[in-house]
């Protein structure tokens, strides 16, 4: 890959590793949770509870997956 493109790919890879890390499902769940919260709010449904629930559940899922990987 020629230099300008390889640099862009390297920067994108770095940002992905930096923000998302080694478990993309947690980041995806947060992203979907924020969209769901916005939709609930637009429809006048109380929505502040959704992200904390996603955080607690996804932490457990991610920890279990990581533990099983090292077993």
């Amino acid at each position, binding site marked *: 890959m020629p230099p300008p493109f390889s640099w862009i790919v390297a920067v994108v890879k770095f940002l992905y590793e*930096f*923000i*998302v*890390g*080694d*478990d993309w499902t*947690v*980041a995806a769940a*947060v*992203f979907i949770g*924020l969209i769901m*919260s*916005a939709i609930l*709010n637009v429809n006048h449904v109380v*929505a*502040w509870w959704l*992200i*904390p629930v996603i*955080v*607690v559940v*996804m*932490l*457990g899922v*991610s*920890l*279990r997956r*990581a*533990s*099983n990987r090292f*077993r």
Partner: protein
Amino acid sequence: MTGVWAVLITTFLASAVEAIEMVTIVVGVGATRGWRSTLVGAASGFGVLAVVVVVLGAALSRVPIGPLRLIVGALLLTFGLQWFRKGIMRVAARGLAGIGGQDPHEAAEWTGPGMDWTAWFLAFKGVVLEGLEVAFIVVTFGAGANQLGVAVIGGVGAIIIVGGIGFALHQTVRRIPRSLLQLIVGVLLSTFGTFWAIEGLGIDWPGGDAAIPVLLGLYVVTALTYITLERNRALGLRPVA
């Protein structure tokens, strides 16, 4: 508005987590290859980090507070959850142990004239790589709380204090319980990330700012529960389904 102390403590602790690794690398390189080139390399690394903080801070200060809190909250939450999870796993596995072990760089001592570029590069790389996360946290957290100056003071203060300990007592810095600090910062970033992201969507928290300590309490209980579960699983007290 998020209090000055919350910003100061969070950025101080986040910076301390990375400063431990950073100082260990710089002290290790300096002690084995000589101090002059190592300190110049470390200073060059801090120069790069200062540019990152100024450029990123200036860019974020132009974004209106509503969208800014959504973006910053989502980023801090996603990033904070990584530290939250790693902190739980490491505290469950190692308790309050420091990073321990041998110094990471045991290169031969430099005796030649002029600049030792190996020492310069090792120190520069150590400061930039370990410091980028700190710069990211300081700028986003400071911008989200509208207190970038306080966040920078917290970040720089931690590097000065950990650096001072590192230079005065080389091995002591390796005994600071980095895993526990990482877990505390992960919990704090996830708490404020959750609060700001939801606020950024225009959703009101019940009780306003009083929701922050409640969220913090929920995440602390979550951390303690998962640490207990991880320890039991590691000891084979609870079979995996």
